[in-house]
């Protein structure tokens, strides 16, 4: 049941939710915010449309009748980096963490305030469009020790290996590498990476950091690359200062 595309292709939103009425209301609401909504009510249909469509973002409910939302997420992530916002069940912290770990860009507990949904979609979209990002130094390469980041191509490498990072993780690594050696407060990371106001008790940024840590692996000397500074934030540890530079 594809809705009429109201704006440009990158404002097309794919909503995967089995609640038909909710999808209709969301189409109407997001339409008013300038998005064109296509709704799919099954997990399989969701995977199909997410992979072949040209939507800017997928809004994916975890509770689906055929495939679990996580399975949809896994199948889409296996082939595409299309931004995905998960709608997780309220009261289920585990879902949120699992979603972010499996590569969702953000999450929102359902039932949600639609203004919040619109704001989250907005933040994810701004992040995932390099040309629209606040950082306009396209083609800039960051190198710290054996990790390099090509912002133009949005490719991160450890040594020669390309790292499979989500948009959030890429932006997070970008922020950490740019401030390498400096402790970056959590609220600053939330604002610059997740592009939303910091709210206490929201541990999304920490989950992203731990996912990034896992993908980066330990430094050559076996220590953690990203150090947590209790009560303040995170620091990308410099190991070989002479080799770190920005080109």
């Amino acid at each position, binding site marked *: 049941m594809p809705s009429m595309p109201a704006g440009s292709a990158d404002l097309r939103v794919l909503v995967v939710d089995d*609640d038909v*009425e*909710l999808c209709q*209301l*969301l189409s*109407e*609401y997001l339409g*008013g*915010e300038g998005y064109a909504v296509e709704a799919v009510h099954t997990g399989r249909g969701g995977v199909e449309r997410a992979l072949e469509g040209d939507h800017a973002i997928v809004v994916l409910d975890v509770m689906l009748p055929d495939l679990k939302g996580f399975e949809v997420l896994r199948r889409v992530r296996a082939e595409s980096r299309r931004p995905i916002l998960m709608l997780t*069940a*309220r*009261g*289920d*912290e*585990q879902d949120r*963490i699992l979603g972010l770990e499996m590569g969702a860009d953000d999450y929102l*507990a*359902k*039932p*949600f*305030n*639609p*203004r919040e949904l619109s704001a989250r979609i907005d933040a994810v979209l701004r992040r995932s469009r390099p040309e629209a990002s606040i950082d306009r130094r396209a083609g800039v390469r960051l190198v710290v020790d054996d990790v390099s980041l090509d912002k133009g191509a949005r490719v991160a490498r450890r040594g020669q290996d390309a790292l499979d990072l989500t948009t959030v993780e890429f932006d997070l690594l970008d922020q950490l590498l740019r401030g390498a050696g400096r402790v970056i407060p959590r609220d600053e990371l939330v604002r610059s990476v997740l592009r939303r106001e*910091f709210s*206490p*008790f929201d*541990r999304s940024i*920490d989950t992203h950091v731990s996912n990034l840590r896992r993908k980066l692996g330990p430094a050559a000397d076996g220590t953690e690359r990203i150090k947590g500074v*209790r*009560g303040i934030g995170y620091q990308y540890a410099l190991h070989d200062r002479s080799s770190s530079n920005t080109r």
Partner: protein
Amino acid sequence: MHRLHVKIFLWFWLGILIVSGTLVLLTELSHSRADDDRAWSEKYAPRLDMWARQESQILRREGPAALERYVGSFEMDPGVTNYIFDAEGHEVLGRKPAPPVLKLLASMGDWPPGRPKIDPNERMIAERVVDSRGDTHIVVVDWPGPSVLNRSLFEFLSPDFYAERPSRSASGRILAVLVVAGLFCFLLARHIARPIDRLRTAARNIANQQLQTRVDESVLERQDELADLGRDFDRMAERIEYLVTAQRHLLADVSHALRSPLARLNVALGLARQRTDQPSEHLDRIETEAERLNKLIGQLLTMARVDSGVDLERPTRFDLGSVVEEVSTDAEYEARTRQCAVQFNQRGECVVQGAREMLRGAVENVVRNAVRHTNERTSVEVSLDRQPAASGSRAIITVRDHGPGVPEETVDTLFVPFNRVMTDGRSNPERTGLGLAITRRTFEVHGGSATAANAPDGGFVVTLEMPVLEGSTA
């Protein structure tokens, strides 16, 4: 061994001892009275004359030493004493006779020689004998043992009574009775006490929320009322489990079912706002209430999730200190808006096993509560201690605020779901009344507890505790 076992054992054992003791005693007594009394007089009376003569003759011909030997052989019968007195009433062998013997001796004054004088009560026979030389002797044979009629009951209880007639076979018999009765009573007591103990364990497990508990098979296999009791207990446990699970499912199902309409309501509200540019007080109000409903449903689902225990199926080990510190740091942001602070103190490392996010939420509920209730410009003190206990160390989290506290009589009900504390005569609509209940359940499923109290010098203290994983560091 448990008290019931010991009690049954001792009572039965004592009972058997008393019954068997009484039987032995009665046999003894009836035997002494009927048979023994006849036996001794029949055995000794006719022969006493001959013995007395012989003794007097031996004394005269061979002297006291020979008599002593003779008397000694005569006294081979256990407990029988043979006294020989001369005309002046002195015991020839220098022994000290008991008063009843002397009494009998005194009564011999004009008793004719050659005839035995029988004292059935004291079980003695005396006879005067005059030998060929005209010397007079009085021979007294003291037959041992009780003459029941003259002895008081208490004498039977004194050890002298039994020492007086030592019988190796008798003490052996007593010992055998003790051992056999003891063994029998021990088994009997165990037979009765063990299933009761099993039932008790099962009841306690159910009280501790392990609702799947059923009575041990060994109880049900019995062929008695205890097995019936066990079966009835199982039926009851089944019913309780069904009801409790049904109630939890109902709560979870209702919350799930409410989620969809509430999600639609939220979006519809957003649409209504989109369509009108004027700020609307009523729409604001609807939004506030919808947000409260969102929160309530979130908490109900959290409660259902904690109860279901799914998060504990794959527990992880982690540093509880980092969780409490994260929560404290986050709470600090919230506290600053009220010019308050959150201080965190950790004493001792606490690595625990469980569901990290669940415990985080549980601690968060308590710390945020404290931040909300502490007075302006005061601080909330959060501390984590490691305390050694008999069954391994415990992690103790205390959260103390400097607020008004709660009315003393409501402290205990704080952890009951939906029990809302009235402040200033009305309840706070921002509170769902589930936060602390979730916290308590969370700590309970982790083998711990949650308690609260007003601090003596003002303020409110919540204490959370759970076991520390021994022998490991973060």
